[in-house]
């Protein structure tokens, strides 16, 4: 009798774990099931003269993490691979991979012809159609760019499946880790964090230019919040607007113009500036605060914050400043709107009981979804280039750090660790380098 109890308990635990596994398997992304992908361990080719284990492991981990992050592909766990014959890139037995429910098989080999060079061969097969070859490409580069090589391959995979590449995209943000608020930049996964501005004054609210070669931000260099355009490759700084407070600039997706907030008239209003001619056009005319403009992906509309009814609410207007309509109706404090890359949703923050949380507004259904709950103050959300992920600031761990989560609030991950980090902006345009 005494033995039966633990046995029943064990059986119960087993059934629970099986149930849990089943739950994970039916993850659905935007109504479309994720594609099951098998990625056997990355190996060195037989010709590889150098076999650096740390390089191999770095590529393997980066590739896995990238595809796992996508919400497009579902990675079949490695422990399932041991039930089938060992992977041999020269002789792939596709029925084996079908038996563990893989739809897509990724074969990746690395060759190091010398100590500092990597050549990676990346092959993708359709398991269900008898192992049809979908695409293959070689990626090469110096040893220190192992992560970048893996990111490029993952980007290529996204493109082949009709998705927007995001693994080589960057996030610009503000950190005080080296003393005062400066502009920093990092990879989408928090890798390679580096400082952009080095000075003794405060720099805040950065955003990307359309070509990703420049950053717009507000600097206190001349003891005034001036809007500047900083050229990443030359270090040149152009002062754009320097009377009173100038901030929250957003580059138009369809041309050389920006929309931004300025108090130069004596009150916070929105302006569109032609970046070629420097000509400006004022969009709002009233005595209340209008702020935080953000273009729609078509460039035809602008979403922004206005206190015209007494409290900050989210509005949409045509790019000419006409046809203003209110979006948020409940709550008394909203701000930081950002339009999703596909135009269907608008991110914003709302304050309830002195706490900010992140919400999305569905433009088609007029419905609002809350993404963060009971976890500190959550601010400044920004979409990933493919609209499946959101980067934002939160003080849930005590001090302010940058986090990333999926569009539905799941898969939370912290990206920063030193100092206070805030105001992240993800590159939202497909990089020109990916267009060729």
């Amino acid at each position, binding site marked *: 009798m005494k033995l039966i109890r633990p046995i029943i308990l064990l059986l119960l635990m087993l059934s629970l774990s099986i149930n849990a596994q089943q739950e994970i398997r039916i993850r659905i992304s935007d109504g479309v099931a994720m594609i099951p992908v098998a990625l056997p361990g990355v190996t060195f080719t037989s010709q590889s003269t150098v076999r650096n284990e740390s390089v191999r492991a770095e590529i393997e981990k980066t590739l896995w993490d990238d595809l796992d992050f996508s919400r497009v592909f579902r990675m079949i766990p490695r422990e399932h691979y041991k039930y089938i014959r060992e992977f041999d890139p020269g002789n792939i037995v596709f029925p084996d991979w079908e038996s563990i429910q893989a739809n897509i098989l990724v074969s990746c080999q690395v060759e190091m012809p010398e100590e500092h060079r990597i050549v990676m061969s990346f092959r993708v097969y359709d398991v269900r159609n008898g192992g049809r070859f979908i695409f293959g490409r070689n990626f090469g580069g110096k040893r220190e760019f192992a992560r970048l090589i893996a990111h490029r391959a993952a980007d290529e995979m996204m493109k082949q499946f009709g998705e927007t590449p995001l693994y080589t995209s960057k996030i610009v943000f503000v950190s005080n880790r080296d003393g005062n608020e400066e502009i920093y930049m990092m990879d989408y996964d928090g890798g390679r964090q580096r400082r952009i501005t080095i000075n003794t004054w405060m720099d*805040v609210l950065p955003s990307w230019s359309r070509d990703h070669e420049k950053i717009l931000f507000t600097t206190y260099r001349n003891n005034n*919040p001036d809007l500047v355009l900083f050229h990443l490759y030359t270090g040149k700084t152009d002062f754009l607007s320097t009377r*009173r407070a100038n901030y929250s600039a957003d580059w138009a997706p369809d041309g050389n113009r920006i929309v931004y907030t300025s108090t130069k008239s004596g009150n*916070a209003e929105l302006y569109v500036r032609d970046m070629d001619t420097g000509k400006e056009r004022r969009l709002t005319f009233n005595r209340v605060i209008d702020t*935080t403009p953000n273009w729609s992906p078509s460039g035809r509309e602008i979403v922004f914050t206005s206190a015209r009814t007494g409290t900050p609410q989210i509005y949409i207007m045509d790019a000419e400043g006409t046809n203003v309509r209110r979006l948020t109706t409940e709550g008394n404090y909203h701000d930081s709107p950002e339009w999703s890359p596909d135009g269907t949703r608008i991110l914003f923050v709302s304050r309830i009981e002195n706490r900010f949380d992140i919400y999305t507004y569905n433009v088609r259904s007029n419905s609002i979804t809350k993404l963060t709950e009971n976890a500190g103050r959550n601010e*400044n959300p920004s979409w990933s280039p493919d609209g499946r992920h959101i980067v934002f600031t939160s003080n849930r761990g005590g001090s302010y750090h940058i986090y990333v989560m999926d569009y539905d609030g799941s898969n939370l991950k912290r990206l920063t660790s030193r100092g206070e980090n805030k105001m992240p902006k993800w590159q939202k345009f497909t990089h020109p380098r990916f267009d060729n």
Partner: protein
Amino acid sequence: MKKLLTVCVLCLAMLTFFNGCKKEVQTEPEPQPVVEKVEEPAPQPEQPKLTEEEIFMQKTLDQINSEGHLKMIHFDFDKYFIREDMKPILQKNSEWLLNHQSVEIVVEGHCDERGTVEYNMALGEKRAEAAMKYLESLGVPSERMRIISYGKNRPLVKGVDEDSHFMNRRGEFKVVKK
């Protein structure tokens, strides 16, 4: 004779006693006023050399700002109007500014962390402007003042209680030229 002698001796004794007393009384207070008298005239000749204005001009901007002639004011949550209890502070600030005609100031607008970065940039500006307009109404020429908004980027105190928030919702007055 004996009586006369005793009276004389008594008189002498009393005289010497009183003399002794007088001496003691005189010697004690004497050094004190002498020391005081030496001290007093010393600063007097220095004062006419430097006027109050000249002393002021000798100080650095940092020294003047740290002396706290211009007191900060605080605002209500989400608001930028000048509170009744802050008006006397602005009155005193304006008096000091009118007594120091060469001084130019920057009026800083700050917010607590309960607003967004972007909205607080505009709100901080509104607060700085409200404070500047009030000083202007008290006779301080607008040419001597400039405003700057820091939004919530420069909190005075770290803390999440109402007292900390109150301290951070502020208008500060910094001397930038004298």
